[in-house]
């Protein structure tokens, strides 16, 4: 009987690997689950992209839910995501806040002029330090933050129509259930 032990151990291993292959097809391996889900968003004070002397802070945005979209002009995938934002953004029913990440303002403005600007609010984080508080490590990333300033959903990678339909919209609907 003990001679069958290696065989059964191996079967377990194969099951694990089979799971691994399946899991890979469902998930993006490079995406790290955010520890900030259902926690308050970090407090921030960032300058507006088009009016660098004016700032936007977290408290300014309280009271209404918003989608914080981290983007940059150097980010190739953001170019892929942008048309989706422009098409679906207005239908979402939440404020669209553009977060320009580690970008020179001129480059960002040029990129937005080229690709379009669907954002209601545009803030810039050129040094990228505030982004660390959000747990951002690249672009694009999107955070759904509710009216009380709690992060309710995070998506790493570009927002595709599929993701918007199956994940983002239900998350927004869930928000609305809380605040009738």
């Amino acid at each position, binding site marked *: 009987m003990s*001679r069958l032990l*290696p065989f059964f151990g*191996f079967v377990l291993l194969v099951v694990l*690997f089979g*799971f*691994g292959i399946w*899991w890979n*097809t469902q998930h993006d*391996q490079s995406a790290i689950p955010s520890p900030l889900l259902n926690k308050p968003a970090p407090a921030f004070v960032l300058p507006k992209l088009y009016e660098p002397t004016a700032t936007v802070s977290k408290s300014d945005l309280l009271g209404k839910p918003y989608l914080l979209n981290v983007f940059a002009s150097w980010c190739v995938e953001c170019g892929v995501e942008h048309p989706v934002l422009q098409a679906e953004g207005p239908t979402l029913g939440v404020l669209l806040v553009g977060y320009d990440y580690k970008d020179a303002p001129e480059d960002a403005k040029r990129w937005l002029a080229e690709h379009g600007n669907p954002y209601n609010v545009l803030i810039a984080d050129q040094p990228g330090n505030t982004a660390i508080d959000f747990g951002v490590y690249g672009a694009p990333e999107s955070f759904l933050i509710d009216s009380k300033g709690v992060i309710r959903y995070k998506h790493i990678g570009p927002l595709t129509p599929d993701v918007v339909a199956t994940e983002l919209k239900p998350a927004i609907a869930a928000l609305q259930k809380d605040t009738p």
Partner: protein
Amino acid sequence: MTPELGQLALILALLLALAQGILPLIGAWRGNRALMAVARPAAAGQAVFVALAFGILVWAFVHFDFSVRYVADNSNLALPWYYRIAAVWGAHEGSLLLWIFILNVWTVALAAFSQKLPEVFAARVLAVMGLIAVGFLAFIIFTSDPFGRLLPMPGDGADLNPVLQDPGMTFHPPVLYTGYVGFSVAFAFSIAALLGGELEQAWVRWARPWTNVAWGFLTCGIVAGSWWAYAELGWGGWWFWDPVENASFMPWLVGLALIHAQAVTEKRGSLRAWTILLSIFAFSLSLLGTFLVRSGVLTSVHAFASDPRRGVFILAFLSIVVGSSLLLYALRAPKVAGGKAFKLLSRETVLLIGNLMFASAAAMVLLGTLFPLIGDALNMGRISVGPPYFGFLFPLLMLPVVLLLPFGPFLRWGKGDTTVLKQVLLRAGIAAAACAIVAAFFVHGQLKAIAGVASLTWLGVGVALYALKRWRDMPRGRRYPAEMAGMLLAHLGVGVFVAGVLLTESLSVTSDVRMAPGQTQHIGGYAFRFDGVHRTTGPNWRADQGVITVTRGGSAVAVMHPQKRTYLRGQVQTESAVDSGIFRDLYVALGEPMDGGNIEGAWSLRLYYKPFVRWIWGGGLLMMLGGFTCAADKRFRIKRIAESEIGESLVMQETRA
């Protein structure tokens, strides 16, 4: 040379491999000599076609045939011919072709050198090799064809990866694969032994040289990979416990246990079941490594392109090969504890303990490597397991081995003698303690460094004591048989390796500094003077080249030229400058200009002083030499087996069947 001929060659090879795999097994089962005799010609034929396919791919690379997608993806008009050949195994499809090519090299060698083995046994061994080849050939033909066309043919290949252009790339994969794949021979021997009911008592003796050589190559391959990473990547590291590195290290550990287990079984006849099981594990881990690297299941910088379909295929293949061999083991492994008995204090016992530690270490590495996957399965979030885990547990598990190593050769088979052991303990122990105390002054009390010196002394003196004993006790010409010489070399290599690791880890100095031309930094007793940066060019790159003059105590040591190269298409590559030496390496990497892009101004530099780092690879090479020397022992050359013996075994096979 039409690439399609390559595809055809692979298909023909597959057919021959099927013949080689199936017919001799039937022949061995039925006692049909004609079917058994198919093995060698089929193996030869398969090898010819695989070599042809491999040759065609090399030809396509050398002649810039960009109509072949694989060539277009992995080479470029500017690539020199030797790197074009290395590019053949630069990605998934080609590296698999290399795998099967090397499998065929081993099979042909086996076919050639097994003439004196009993017919039935040899037929089974070659058949198992054939079945393995069937799996890989099928994998290549159905999912990873390197000969697919890319039409319309591009004018030039894909962007050149500068890291590819290095001798390490030419050398490391083939040598590593030779080792990996070589464990298939030990595996085939074990399966043949299980199938045949192990009537040939000597099968382990036949398997030993093959296993030792394979292990030697694997050692060399791992050392080459480590050295290459150190030299090419420029960050001073030589091992990262990355999943792909671990994938080669696990078979190495189990192979190490296997060569020791084979020694016990060959000489004493005991522990046969362990030896068979270890052979199966060693090759299974080789296959597992192939799976891990290509399935995308683990995150690694070195992994090949992942494709779920390929992952499923390899997993299926792995399941069939390993699953059936483990079932066969469960059914047919020797149930009766055979061979000579041994007491608690004996060489067998220490070898068992050593093997326990090697196997546990391999299991630990497997656990740590797979744990992120387990974490995903159990929904624990993404967990990372890295050097702090492996680097803590591995030395812990190897400590008993290092402590017991000097005693091994002094312990007799079956029953050891305590007086001799006490002598060894005293002499090696005192020597180690003495050197440790002396070292303590030089290294300012750094424990790891002291441990490194103590380990080397302990192991080195143990080896020297035994060598001395043999010198005194044995007449000239019989003092150091190859097998023993190999053992002594390898064990010495362990000491050198351990010393290298502990000393480098504790005594290395790294510093990121800003230096203006003319400034000097002092690291590790050496003075590095920065003499500015100027532009220079190469065949397909432009570079900013720094000049660093190194002196020690006033006398010149070296002038180093670290570079920051920009290749034709804009890729930037840092080429660090390494001044190597037996007792230390000096290392300089160029950072960035600090005065707003002015290359004549100040630069950021990283300076390293790495003492004894070459001992890491030196130790590894000694181990490799030990393995090869051991395999060369005259005792392993197969003697012609008496006719009556063959007749007897055949009769017994037939009645068994």
